[in-house]
């Protein structure tokens, strides 16, 4: 029994020692930093880390906007496309309400871009380590401000007056945020772009396409030219466009222009292999992982069934009769083949050779969409359903030349130079030059050049309500009736009203932030 008691005491001491030891360990014990992600406070220590800080701004936050909404607005509402899908048809017939889930994705997605850009803009300057050169930090902040400006540019064009958020942390617990007038949003955008002009690296786009991927000082100038065009400040638009052209940074892919790159073509612009070709000014940089939202989902909506290799390929939009008739010559204009799939057309590069079905009939249009349809993962170096690696253009040099032309024709600068730029586009498309183009010619050229690049709606609306309402209300959005031979048109047009030129805020957001229903409040610039 004595032994037993001794044993007890020994054990007891050991155990008590363990007990007493615990508190001394507990400071470390209770410190659990993240193990599978970086703590923001400890990132940005090296140049490498600062250089990759902006990568994500080119991809994921844009996904919902680009894949699900931008074509609904840019192509369906504008009348370039039509659909029977009950949900998306609301875009065709101006029946969009704040309840519409697809529209909500535009709001969320573009503001997600703003939020991520703001986080970089507001964190980097203070957080960057002492070893990181200042110009590296400034370039990264410049890129982020460029991208923020691009997101606000879409937001203001879609929704009109919106809240300008420069630092999300200020409002994270504040639901009631006033909206700011459109003019302030434009001012905010211009300041961002000017910062990017001043701080981003200057580049010359060459044959190393990978090096072209990120935006440059020249990209910002080009975007700024476009913003000035929307503001009808034609001299500034012209001047900036000229500077971009004269810098030699970008090239027109294909054609015979002196600032052209004869190795490419209009068709080649949209092949995955040619991502970041010298015509690309700003493009979203999707990846081939196939992970949802890391790749481009556009062809899932545009392609005919079977082309992608997955269950997507929903042919959700058909090129409207109106658009088809807008082509001067579907044979001569090389852009038709690159944009629209006609029955029986053959695409040698698509999945190693693809012949369009003779009965192709997207949404009653008797044709399908080709642009941004790139085929299977195998033929594009990867990807998966709703996630393909091909870039999405936000701005390319072809458009810049048309901006140049439009600004010039509006009295912003040398008309001759403008016409020269205009005809470079015509020539590349295989069309004859127009000696004395009008503004209507530029509008028409933009429509065809940028068809299915989700741009046309904004071009229509910025012509002013008189033009826009007339145009939108008379666009042929009907279908072909194939029961007759040749097919006749079941005509459909939908009257647009002033309210329809801006899209409504999501209803949930009006509930969350009732200030969206009140008059815009001037933004306080620093």
């Amino acid at each position: 029994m004595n032994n037993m008691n001794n044993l007890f005491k020994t054990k007891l001491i050991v155990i008590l020692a363990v007990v007493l030891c615990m508190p001394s360990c507990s400071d470390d014990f209770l410190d659990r930093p993240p193990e599978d992600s970086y703590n923001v406070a400890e990132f940005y220590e090296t140049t490498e880390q600062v250089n990759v800080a902006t990568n994500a701004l080119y991809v994921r936050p844009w996904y919902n906007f680009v894949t699900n909404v931008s074509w609904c607005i840019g192509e369906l509402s504008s009348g370039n496309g039509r659909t029977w899908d009950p949900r998306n048809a609301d875009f065709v017939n101006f029946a969009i309400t704040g309840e519409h889930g697809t529209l909500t994705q535009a709001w969320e997605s573009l503001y997600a871009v703003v939020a991520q850009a703001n986080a970089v803009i507001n964190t980097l300057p203070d957080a960057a380590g002492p070893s990181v050169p200042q110009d590296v930090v400034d370039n990264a902040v410049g890129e982020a401000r460029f991208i923020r400006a691009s997101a606000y540019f879409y937001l203001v064009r879609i929704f009109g007056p919106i809240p300008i958020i420069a630092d999300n942390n200020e409002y994270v617990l504040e639901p009631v945020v006033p909206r700011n007038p459109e003019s302030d949003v434009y001012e905010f955008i211009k300041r961002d772009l000017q910062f990017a002009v001043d701080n981003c690296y200057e580049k010359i786009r060459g044959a190393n396409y990978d090096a072209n991927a990120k935006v440059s000082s020249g990209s910002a100038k080009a975007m700024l030219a476009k913003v000035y065009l929307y503001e009808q400040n034609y001299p500034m638009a012209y001047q900036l466009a000229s500077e971009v052209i004269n810098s030699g940074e970008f090239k027109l892919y294909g054609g015979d222009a002196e600032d052209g790159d004869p190795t490419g073509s209009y068709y080649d612009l949209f092949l995955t292999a040619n991502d970041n070709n010298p015509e690309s000014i700003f493009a979203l940089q999707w990846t081939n992982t196939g992970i949802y939202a890391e790749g481009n989902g556009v062809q899932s909506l545009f392609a005919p069934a079977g082309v992608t290799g997955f269950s997507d390929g929903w042919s959700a939009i058909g090129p409207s009769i109106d658009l088809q008739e807008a082509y001067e010559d579907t044979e001569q204009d090389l852009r038709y083949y690159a944009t629209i799939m006609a029955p029986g057309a053959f695409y040698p590069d698509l999945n190693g050779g693809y012949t369009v079905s003779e009965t192709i009939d997207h949404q009653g249009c008797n044709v399908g969409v080709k642009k941004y349809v790139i085929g299977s993962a195998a033929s594009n170096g990867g990807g998966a359903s709703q996630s393909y690696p091909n870039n999405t253009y936000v701005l390319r040099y072809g458009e810049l030349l048309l901006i140049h032309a439009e600004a010039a024709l509006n009295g912003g600068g040398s008309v001759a130079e403008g016409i020269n730029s205009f005809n470079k586009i015509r020539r590349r498309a295989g069309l004859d030059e127009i000696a004395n183009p009008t503004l209507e010619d530029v509008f028409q050229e933009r429509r065809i050049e940028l068809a299915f690049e989700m741009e046309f709606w904004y071009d229509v609306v910025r012509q002013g309500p008189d033009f826009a309402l007339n145009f939108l209300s008379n666009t042929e959005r009907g279908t072909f009736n194939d029961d007759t031979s040749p097919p006749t048109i079941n005509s459909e047009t939908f009257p647009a009203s002033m309210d329809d030129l801006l899209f409504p805020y999501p209803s949930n957001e009006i509930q969350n932030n009732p200030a969206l229903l009140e008059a815009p409040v001037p933004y306080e610039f620093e």
Partner: protein
Amino acid sequence: MQKINLKNIYGSRYYYTFLLFCLVGQLAFAQTQVKGVVTDENGMALPGVNILEKGTSNGVYTDFDGNYVITVKDNATLVFSYLGFVTQETAVSGRVSINVTLVESLESLDEVVVIGYGSQLKEDLSGSVSTIDTEALNNLPQVSVDQLMQGRASGVSITQNSGQPGSAVSVRIRGVNTISGSAEPLYIIDGVPISGDSNNISTSGRSIADNDLGQGDGATGVSPLAALNPSDIESINILKDASATAIYGSRGANGVVIITTKSGKNKKGTLRYNTYLAIQRPTNFYEVMDLSQYARLQNEMAEIYGLNPQIEFLNPSLLGPGTNWQQEIFDDAVMQSHEVSFSGGNEDVNYFLSAGYLDQDGTVIGSGFDRINVRANVGANITDKIKVGANLTASRTNDKLTLNNATNGIIYLSLLNNPATAVYNPDGSFAGPDLDDDFKFENPIARALSLSNRLERNRFFGNIFAELKLGKNLTYRTEFGGDFGNNVSDRFQPTFSYGEITGGESALSVRRENNDFWILKNILTFQKKFNNKHDVTVMLGQEAQESKWQGVIASDGEFVSNDVPILGTGNAIDNTDQYKGSTALSSYFGRAIYSFDNKYNITASIRADGSSKFAEGNKWGYFPSVSASWRLSNENFMDDFDAIQNIKIYGGYGEVGNQAIPNFAYGARLNTVSTGLGTGFEFANFANEDLKWESSTQTNLGLDFSVFDSRLNATVEVYNKVSKDFLYQLAVTDFITGGNSPGAIAAPWVNLGEMVNKGIDVTLNYKTKGSQDFSWNSSLTFSHYKNEVKELLGDLTIFGEMTMNTSNQNVTITQVGQPIGLFYGYKVEGIFRTLDDINGAPVQFGRPFEDALFSTTWLGDIKFKDINGDGVVNTDDRTVIGNPHPDFTFGFQNSFNYKNFDLSIFMQGSYGNDVFNAVNRSLTAGNQTYTNQLPSVLDYWSVDNPNASNPRLARNDTPNINISDRYIEDGSYLRIQNVTLGYTLPSDATSTFGINRLRVYGMIQNLYTFTKYSGYDPEIGVYNQNALLMGVDNGRYPTPRIFTLGLNVEF
């Protein structure tokens, strides 16, 4: 049968010894030898029964076969006492052979209640603790213990979130206490804490089940408690008020459920075999349109959308019924269970060993669950001062998962799918929609059967402990517990082709996850009784716990065939993703219990918790409690008062905390993503360095009493619970966070506000006395609570948002002064039937009154109410349209025994709660092509049908489907949850085969539900355990009806 180990320490022995001393004092003369056998009611020998000559210290024990021999005086009286049995006295009266049958003591079962870090006599209890009668739970065909507790304890509201086998349930103890992700209680299984949160909010942040079954966010939560075989459970005690849970401090805010598993009895070894076979059957179907009705609808819709008419629908009356998709996806499903257990022991060693197998197919095609589990519980006294033991269980569960509770879930698909499409093609392959269908639904059968999503969970948990007697009154206990899990999840989508929907590429996603949790406890307990009146127990403890997780997700695709999908063999780009992390909690606690003369009891406790969830300076939380009770009936002045017995009044106050949030929520993290530019980094979340503990204070007042000679026991408790600084991930607007968009920045966790739950819990128990042929035992529980939000960062309004039919909808509103999560939307006044209705009516949503198909309001549209009277109907006219909180819930358990027959009936229900029927919303929308609907939709308004019940058919943009009280229904129900009839063969008939007991029984689970609810099942639960989405029916997997035949054998 039911007996609690810890009783040895506190209860019965004390009591019997005490008894012994009191009875000293008899004299006797001649000595005689008496012998005999002691058995229980089933005739089974009882070894170790204490036989005392009354009034002396002369005593013996029965041997292994229940035999005893004792020499006593002629006129002696023998006292037979045995733990868990009624002590019996028999006068010798000159006999030499006395065989005794001891009756199991029912009262003694309830005597000791397990409380946190100890146990207490029920009569001394001053906190609110519900004990669930586990006897009634035996053999119920339920997979996990959380489901079993339904309706069994007052103040505990349990709803099954889904009828899918193995799915998570939501357990709410005394109302909703927090609106952060998890309001689930803490489970303590044999001392090992296990969270009830299926979404793992506070650890990896990833739901156990791979919920990436497609787009959308359906409910796929699986129960974290599925690893525990309910048959292994000895007792369930639910700590409800803060004075009881405060000892669990940080994790006790949502209540604590203490589960103790079985241990061996101090008697001859027994072998039990239990088995049942059950058939599960869906209870009811929605009546959706058949083919001819559908064709009529399509013809109308085609006109509205300007589609070319479908030739095959030209004469709908000639069409047959078409495909009944519901009948195709629902099927009778078999469930079977086998379990064997061995238990036994002697004075020094006891053991309980069990093994079980359960296999459950789901009533929805493609779903299922199975489990294999083994358990070993062992206890031993190494010396009279050292006691050691272990409770260990290992289990493997397999879930076959389908996506439900989402618009693209199997059930939704079956309801909305086109009856014109066949399930199979003539060649046996899956059929699909035709080319003409621009709005295609997948074949749900194909989806359910071809997509394989399996989750295997391996889990090992339990504890090992040593208890030392350091002196007469001082005990030291050290305990190490662990919960080690490994989840293997494989999801494979083979190539397929259903009609026009084809998938040329296959895709595989696998997930491997390890979770390690350990807990170390050191507890010192001092217990002493002074002067036979002052009973003091002081407990001091220390505890440290750590939870670690890590996992890898990898994917591949484009396999050569669908036969052997293995990572690395497919042609697709291989993707991998790794995650890991850990949390820790360090705690110190103490408790003092003082009771005086079995009349007064006062308990005080305090706990300090340090959590890794908070930044430096906010890590530690302190949680005190105090409670007291007064046993009125033990007062002398009550001696003559017999009408009411066992009166006890008690009350308490306590504070508990909550820290169930993700790690490092106080700081900002970067997520790594892939981009075309190489690796990229996204800001993952907004930081909040000021984040601190959520605390909950609760005041509880209770009254226990018995009447009718202690046959009817009643407990009435009222409480007031205040949750302060509750933790919530607050997204005030989508333009700050980015909402649901990829790349959105997660909203910050904040201490949001204050909420009060007041309520009353009533439990009534009735049982007939004695061992007559007939006995009846009945238990009624009744619970009511009232929830009110007091503060939301000032007076913020929070909306419960949910994705329905691809659109985000605010379904509920939470604002100061009202209960949490009220349904929110428009009020419907009727349908615009005539031009008179339209004249002067407020313009709705800015849509002019005009005879057009879209962007207008016209005859046949829903007339919404202008709530604020401003002359127009717009978003400002939303209001509260329903309340998901019940007025009360109840459970009513009845057990009858007549000779060898036993019958039990369990009813359970809820009254006064509303349900938002999102399924009905989709099924009556009448605004889309190629979408099936309820037949009532055909009674749509038209000029020819002005008295229609439904609005006109319309285009997609119609406001007729805005969230409104059209979709609010009364969710009250009374369910006959279980009826069991059993028969135990007479023991003399079975004993010849060496069988002690043989019982056969038949049972019907979920027999019938009385309800006005039009959906599958009024028991909706909480959508993905989100407190803001209570009572929203979005295609919930309905709970099936189960017919069971079972057998219990004991050797």
